[in-house]
């Protein structure tokens, strides 16, 4: 394992020190609790948006803290959900009197830790907390009897859109409603060319031969659903688009198309893949109204790509276009 770190135990806390040093104008960091906070928060009268999860997905979530997006992000250990103490600290810190929305990716650990934190925050301080659980990964077979789908790329789009809605002064019920709707209308699919190495583990989570790829991966370096021979970009685009469209009808409304690099795939390939994906979508009658290309929800240095489609409406598009000022996503200001 080769990483630019000092010790496997301090990766997250030292990265947070660097983040604070790099963005003193926009971020404030509660180092004891490992919570990234909006510098100008809590914003009085605004619903506080709290997300978080394991580290190793940067810029998500800490890089999405700021005006028009999150109020706080809790940084867990690498690929390990944060603990309730962190989430409670974040919830208290962002409470502007209008309640707090937790944005949770659907992993057993994340869901349980956020649940415990919400129970405690409500009991201890009477803060009204709602939660939305994002579960958009079509690679996972969903059923009543399983843990359900993983939360992946839709999370980024949701944090942006709901962040804009919160900034616009919508209340907790309205935000919970639109967040739930976004989670229901987003679908993702990913593939990997390499695995990645969790610092504490010291070696790659799985091994792929030079002529293999892994289809249906999540964002924790975990193996996917299927190991396949390495495909061309055109074939790979098909493999990503097809299961997404098979799961939800994306025709008939504007779509936000998000092509995401997993961390180790250069932008050159991401753009090439965007072109291939756009071709397939056009042929399938999907109207892309907005797009996002880049490494926004990553698995450390994993090489690979994910596709997220969100069935949007005019309201969501307006919120998508609204100003956002975070280290990871910025426009309009």
């Amino acid at each position, binding site marked *: 394992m080769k990483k630019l770190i000092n010790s496997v135990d301090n990766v997250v806390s030292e990265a947070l020190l660097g983040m604070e040093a790099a963005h003193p104008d926009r971020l404030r960091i509660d180092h004891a609790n490992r919570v990234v906070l909006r510098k100008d928060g809590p914003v009085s009268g605004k619903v506080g948006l709290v997300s978080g999860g394991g580290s190793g997905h940067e810029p998500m979530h800490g890089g999405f803290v700021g005006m028009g997006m999150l109020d706080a992000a809790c940084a867990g250990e690498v690929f390990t959900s944060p*603990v309730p103490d962190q989430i409670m600290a974040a919830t208290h810190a962002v409470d502007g009197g209008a309640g707090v929305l937790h944005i949770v990716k659907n*992993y*057993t650990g994340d869901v349980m830790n956020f649940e415990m934190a919400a129970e405690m925050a409500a009991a201890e301080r009477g803060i009204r907390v709602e939660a939305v659980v994002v579960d958009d990964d079509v690679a996972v077979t969903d059923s009543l009897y*399983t*843990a359900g789908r993983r939360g992946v790329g839709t999370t980024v789009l949701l944090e942006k859109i709901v962040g804009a809605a919160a900034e616009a002064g919508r209340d907790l019920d309205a935000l919970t409603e639109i967040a739930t709707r976004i989670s229901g209308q987003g679908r993702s699919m990913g593939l990997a060319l390499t695995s990645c190495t*969790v610092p504490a583990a010291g070696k790659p989570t799985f091994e792929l031969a030079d002529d293999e790829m892994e289809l249906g991966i999540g964002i924790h370096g975990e193996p996917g*659903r299927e190991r396949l021979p390495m495909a061309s970009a055109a074939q790979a685009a098909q493999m990503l688009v097809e299961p997404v469209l098979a799961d939800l009808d994306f025709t008939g409304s504007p779509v936000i198309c998000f092509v995401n690099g997993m961390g180790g795939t250069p932008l050159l390939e991401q753009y090439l893949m965007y072109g291939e994906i756009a071709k397939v979508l056009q042929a399938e009658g999907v109207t892309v109204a907005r797009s996002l290309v880049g490494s926004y929800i990553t698995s450390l240095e994993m090489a690979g790509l994910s596709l997220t489609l969100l069935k949007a409406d005019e309201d969501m598009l307006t919120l998508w276009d609204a100003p956002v000022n975070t280290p990871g996503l910025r426009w309009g200001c």
Partner: protein
Amino acid sequence: MELTKAQAWMADFAATISQNAALLTDLDRQIGDADHGSNMNRGMQAVIALDRDFPDAASYLKKAGMTLVSTVGGASGPLYGTFLLRFAGALTGQTTHDAHGMARAWRAGLEGVISRGKAGPGDKTMVDALQPAVEAMEAETSDLAICLTSGLAAGEQGRDATTPMVARKGRASYLGERSAGHQDPGATSIVLLLEAAARTLA
């Protein structure tokens, strides 16, 4: 249960986890995200770093449970934390330290895990080791040592039985059929907890 026994149990478990952290992480690498060993180790190191001054075993184990909740994260933090919190709750007010009480405490812990994680038998989780262990303890309440060793033996069997299972809960469930053929990490660490108990609590 005496405070010193509870502390010996946690100390033993912490040492065992530390020795087996690489193994647990390795199991988790195969069907999860390669962190179960480091998660549990981080938590148990925090537990043994606790002050040793507690009025009784129940308050100590409650604090240990809270410590796991606060330091582990992931799925195992809330689950092991809830286990110990409920286990401690069942000890509260117990005056005799016999196999009956022991089995009752483990049962309470198991129920905490189930209510928190919603897993049932056969879902390929720690429940598959914990539930048969508790049932075996409940069936052997004549002697505390025998109670614990039969719990351990049943837990080991339960752990081994997870290997062919297709996971329906936790991260391994994302793998679908590919999760079969691998032993569940959480079931494996539960057996370490049972081993430590058999060594220290009788």
